[in-house]
């Protein structure tokens, strides 16, 4: 069976282009970036004084970070070490400073946010289509880049103080 000459040319062309292509890679894994973003948010948000000895970052739903989140555990916020927890039960959620709701829970976002309503918890929703559903921060992908929306009303109601710098960098504020 003779291999179609045109296929060979096409594949050869791609193979030749590949080494040159490697130089183009300036892309990072999505959740490595989102983990860094979560850490960065702590510089722009003020929580009321709390009794917790650690700064709790909780993940609800199918954990997309895996080992990446554990890297956060080496950092501190306002002198308190970051503790990363995978939370499931609602009483736990109230003691979180950051509550990351994974994309798998997009349908249950409402009830999860209800559980922490009024508490100083920075809720971060990780799915497009979760906008305006009550999370303080909603993460989204704009083409190949990360963007986020801020719900200033909910932040205020939760007792969180958001720096104007963060509001300026947000895609939408409502």
């Amino acid at each position: 069976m003779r291999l179609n000459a045109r296929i060979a040319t096409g594949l050869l062309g791609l193979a030749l282009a590949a080494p040159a292509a490697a130089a183009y890679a300036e892309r990072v894994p999505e959740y490595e970036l989102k983990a860094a973003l979560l850490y960065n948010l702590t510089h722009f948000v003020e929580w009321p004084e709390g009794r917790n000895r650690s700064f709790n970052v909780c993940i609800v739903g199918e954990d997309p970070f895996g080992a990446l989140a554990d890297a956060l555990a080496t950092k501190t916020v306002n002198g308190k070490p970051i503790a990363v927890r995978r939370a499931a039960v609602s009483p736990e959620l109230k003691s979180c400073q950051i509550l990351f709701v994974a994309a798998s829970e997009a349908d249950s976002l409402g009830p999860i946010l209800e559980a922490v309503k009024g508490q100083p918890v920075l809720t971060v929703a990780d799915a497009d289509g979760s906008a305006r559903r009550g999370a303080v921060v909603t993460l989204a992908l704009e083409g190949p880049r990360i963007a986020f929306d801020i719900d200033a009303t909910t932040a205020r109601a939760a007792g969180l103080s958001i720096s104007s710098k963060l509001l300026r960098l947000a895609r939408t504020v409502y």
Partner: protein
Amino acid sequence: MRRTHRSAFSPFPDRNRRRAARRRALAVSLLMVATAAPAAPADLTELSLEQLLGLEVVSASRFPQKRSDAPSAVTVITAADIKAYGHRTLADILRSVRGLHVTNDRNYSYLGARGFGRTGDYNGRILLLVDGYRINENVYYSAFIGQEFLVDVDLIERVEFVPGPGSALYGNNAFFGVLNVITKRGRDVNGIELSAEAGGFGASKGRLTYGQSAEDGADLLLSASGYDRRGDNLYFPEFDSPATNNGVAQGRDGERHGSVFAKVANNGFTFHAAQVRRTKGVPTASYLQVFNDPRSRTYDAESLVGLAYETAYAPKVDVAARVFYSQYDYWGDYVYDNGLGGTYVNRDESPGAWWGGELKLVHRTFEAHKLVGGVEYQRDTRQDIYNADLDPTVVKLDERHSGKRESVYVQDEYTLRADLLLSAGLRHERATIGGNMTNPRVALIYKATEESTFKAIYGTAFRAPNVYELYYAALSGGMKANPDLKPEQIATRELVWERQFGPKARLTVAAFDNHISDLIAAVTDPADSMLVFENVASAHARGLEVEGERIHDSGLRWRASYSLQRAEDLETGERLVNSPRRLAKLNLSAPVAGVRAGLEVQYTDNRRTLQGETGGYTVTNLTVATESLAKGLEASASVYNLFDKAYVYPAGEEHSMDVLREDGRSWRLKLNYRF
């Protein structure tokens, strides 16, 4: 397409045609200089927020989120899959889905689900939706999955196949399942995208897409595509005689397609406008036509205009409303011997038009209940079938029909306990064709552990007889109408087990049992020897499907499925035609030397044909794709049927041959440029 009456046929002297050779040159500059870019730093937490927002991400590999409102084992195919595996049409996409098998008779592509794929049926037993709009046209209820499908495959964000009876939510045609095609948004394109393709058998395609989004969520997507395929010279042993060009249909397998698509979203409103037109040469001399005549072809066109509005009416109440207008046009030219040494063309037409509206409420107010309720109205203003001989025009059939369909449905998802969910739905439909239908679906979902879920599902669905089955009559004899046809019905029991192994691996096992009654089939009435459609047949299909999926940290993704199924005609006890006993599929995508390789291996077991049986076959497809040739440039090269395997599909009643040979090895080169 679409008729079963027979007319006299006699072999006809061959027409030798010389066709102008067309060469298509595709200039590809693959060695563009890659812009040097800074390597990403090791610790992203060291970067400022502005810097983080400026980085580009490689989208995480994860199992795509299922949005369908259905408690069954849904399969989701994403845009990334479509790119990785080089899928050219919706038919290619569906070939990779668990439990489905696709056949093609060189005119249309047909979808078989769970062992049921009778030749000559027009996909009326699968409901095809695009962004929620019903695509099955209103004359044959066919769902088009080939190049005649409404939307260019590159505009697809995801395809969700929900197996099982869906009439409790969707009504007519949701017999074996519902196919939900969701299109991309303007912000997924974010600029202008140009695409050019060249492929085997003289295929070429061009597409221009523009997408844009604004800060307040307004979104615009516009696209236009054109496709042309010369087609191969095909050899049919059944016609191998000097009088019929020695069995060679020369250049009769051509295909041409054009489509436009527009989607505008703003403030809760979404507007859709789309149209597709496709012309296909028919080389098989179906319906006893003259062989190798260039005039044998079919033309299908479908248009859709729709406006939808979604809003949160109250804190826990979502409201969605939509109105739409659709049109379907079909004509087919069939060439016959006029018995006087010449030929004549017989033309079939079936124009359809329908409009309608839908209102849906999602109510989450009560503790532990998620209530969905809706009303739908559809008015079929035109469901015509027309048939005439041309030159001179002798009208043989001119049926004009119209009708309407009113339905109301309700569904409740009741969380009985933290680990137990009961979903119950019911839909009542009243239609001009088919009368009154009421269909329930009940599912019990038990979350045994965090990682293990069991589902038990029971539901019924129907397919109303279409205008063609009811009213088509050949005045010259051979076929008569049957306005008393009733809808076909199916009752399905299904058991599903889904087991997660961490977030990146999943096993799905599904067992199903389908009882199908009042199946519509063409039979010969002994009283007058005329063909007529009757609700005569019934079938029983049962099977077991197993599917495993895994995403590895290295970036390797795979999905493998195996289906064991048995579908029998209850009258005769025989296996149904075109029902493979086993299906095995593998999709594997891996990063290799800076590019991404996508491998598909699909095994289909032997199937019964109308006259016998045909063997099993395996098809292998390989795609190599790269996104980083240069900024904004994506390229891919695909080989389909890599090992040039000769395989056949069972032919239908309208074909003189028992089986149809499918394409051998073929290829495609594709370039996408965004700016």
